[in-house]
């Protein structure tokens, strides 16, 4: 009895000590998050309520309600982010599936080509698309000289160009987590399904696909959230007609004397993103989807 009790207190002490140690280990990271995330975001919230005359005011938010352009800019931003995420899934998922079925050495080679664009700057890639897609660009030149179409097609300085550029840049962010999830799946499961009489299509949809969902959701979420903050690509390929929130933040900084006008836009973007994630988490078990939890 006594020995057991001593044992118990000893165990509890050990546990507390371990917790303390873990806390100590986590402390630098927590401090870092506090310093580089919590404080600046709090500051952003605070500044957004400061008007042009330097006192507390709601004018930065009132402006967004009064002028219709702000609603349209938010709409464009979410539209582009959804479309880019959707296109990335359509292109990236089959590609990841294909690569994951290849022998490891060839698969690694394929992955390197997927990652290759990461090594060149985003700006360079964006301008490359401009050169390729413009009225007298390579694509139109070839298309016309091969007789595929007669008049130059407008592929850039609009939504189309913006989407092409963004999908190209975001694809690796989707392919990598999906590929990771697929690689982790025991392919014998597919054979087992076939053995039990499932057609390849059925085996894919009932066995493989659900198992890849965590990777797919992690990837889609990452793509979607990164898209919300895009600046360079829509600015260069959108021809001034595709205006996303980040671009408006810059114009507001140039236009208004106070930082609040721009901060308020950042706050609304942050809050609406959080709302979307919250709604998503109501319907989907995000923790499980992103591979977290137990």
């Amino acid at each position, binding site marked *: 009895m006594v020995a057991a009790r001593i044992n118990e207190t000893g165990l509890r002490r050990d546990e507390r000590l371990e917790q303390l140690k873990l806390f100590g280990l986590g402390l630098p990271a927590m401090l870092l998050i506090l310093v580089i995330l919590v404080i600046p975001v709090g500051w952003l919230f605070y500044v957004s309520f400061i008007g042009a005359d330097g006192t507390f005011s709601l004018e930065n938010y009132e*402006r967004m309600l009064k*002028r*219709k*352009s702000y609603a349209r800019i938010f709409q464009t931003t979410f539209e582009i982010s959804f479309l880019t995420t959707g296109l990335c899934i359509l292109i990236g998922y089959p590609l990841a599936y294909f690569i994951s079925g290849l022998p490891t050495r060839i698969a690694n080679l394929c992955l390197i080509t997927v990652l290759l664009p990461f090594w060149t700057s985003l700006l360079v890639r964006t301008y490359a698309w401009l050169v390729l897609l413009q*009225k*007298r660009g390579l694509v139109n030149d070839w298309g016309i000289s091969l007789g595929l179409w007669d008049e130059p097609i*407008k592929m850039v*300085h609009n939504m189309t160009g913006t989407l092409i550029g963004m999908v190209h840049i975001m694809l690796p962010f989707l392919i990598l987590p999906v590929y990771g999830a697929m690689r982790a799946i025991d392919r014998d499961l597919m054979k087992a399904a076939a053995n039990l009489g499932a057609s390849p299509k059925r085996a894919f949809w009932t066995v493989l696909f659900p198992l890849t969902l965590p990777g797919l959701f992690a990837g889609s979420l990452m793509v979607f959230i990164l898209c919300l903050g895009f600046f360079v690509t829509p600015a260069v390929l959108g021809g*001034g007609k595709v205006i996303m929130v980040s671009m408006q933040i810059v114009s507001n900084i*140039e236009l208004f004397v106070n930082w609040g006008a721009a901060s308020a836009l950042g706050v609304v973007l942050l809050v609406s993103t959080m709302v979307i994630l919250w709604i998503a988490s109501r319907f989907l078990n995000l923790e499980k989807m992103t591979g977290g939890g137990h």
Partner: protein
Amino acid sequence: MKTRTLLTISAAVMATSAFAQDKSVTIASWGGSYQEAQSKALFEPAAANTGIEVKQETYGGMSDVRLQVSSGQVTLDIVASGSGSAARAAAEGLLEKLDYSVIDVSTFYPGLYTDYCVGGDVFSTVYAWNTNTYGDAGPQSWADFWDVEKFPGSRAYRGGVAGALEPALMADGVAPEDVYSVLDSEEGIERAIDKIRELKPNISVFWTSGAQHAQLMKDGEVDMTTGWNGRFDNAAKDGAMVKYSFNQALLDYDCFAVPKGAPNRDTAMAFLNEISKPEYQDDLPKYITYGPTNKAAYDTGEITAEVAMGLPSSPDNAAMQLPVSLDWYAKWETIAAEMYQEMMTE
């Protein structure tokens, strides 16, 4: 012979840099062919003659200055700016008052310097056209620019309000001298913006920088655009099929300002005095077709009659143009910009 000149030059450079060891200024400008011209005509020769060391940067405009001043981390001594944004920055308290006991503006054109910004060059906002599409006889007025029947083709237009409303009103039949009085109300601004709405289906790009509108013409991406005259001349020199006209253009000037709390304020004033002298300003047109702000630059003989004819500020050209009103921009720019944005996002 060559070696000896080189030696003399390097000796001279060493000598000047030796006696002016710690005098340096950091200058920020807009980059591209514009800053290259400034660098060759103004900054480099003035640095060599005064021994002041010049560090050059490119920047994003007065918002950068605002960031530096409000955070107390001012690194720039001199910034090149549009006259309008300089006036706004001055009203915000972001700029040092210029010391005109140091900077000599006695031979300047009146109205091309203010308490906070001394003119560096005169430029025009013009309409330019692709000579492949329209030949040499392109549009000759803003009404022509708007006329898509007579001049079918795609247009580019400014993605911001500065210099965007005046042409629209002139295209709508307002006489140049009445433009700013019509614009002096929200209804007038809306009238101009409605005129741009009318053209919008034919505007394929809203440009945001001078380098961009020059590139658009070089690539033949659009058939017609608004833009800054010097950029088009440089594009034409590079082989672009582009021409422009000064008729009904907007006459404006760029200037140099000193951010509040600039680390080398006094050196900056001395340097501004140096680059405002006619012997530097008369070299600028060799690199970009922007005119001098110092009248005396026309008297040195460096600017030939032929070159002068192509400059925005030559009397004949200036007479055809509408001078930009800084007062209007100070009063209306923010409101007009918000209204412009409504049109852009529709």
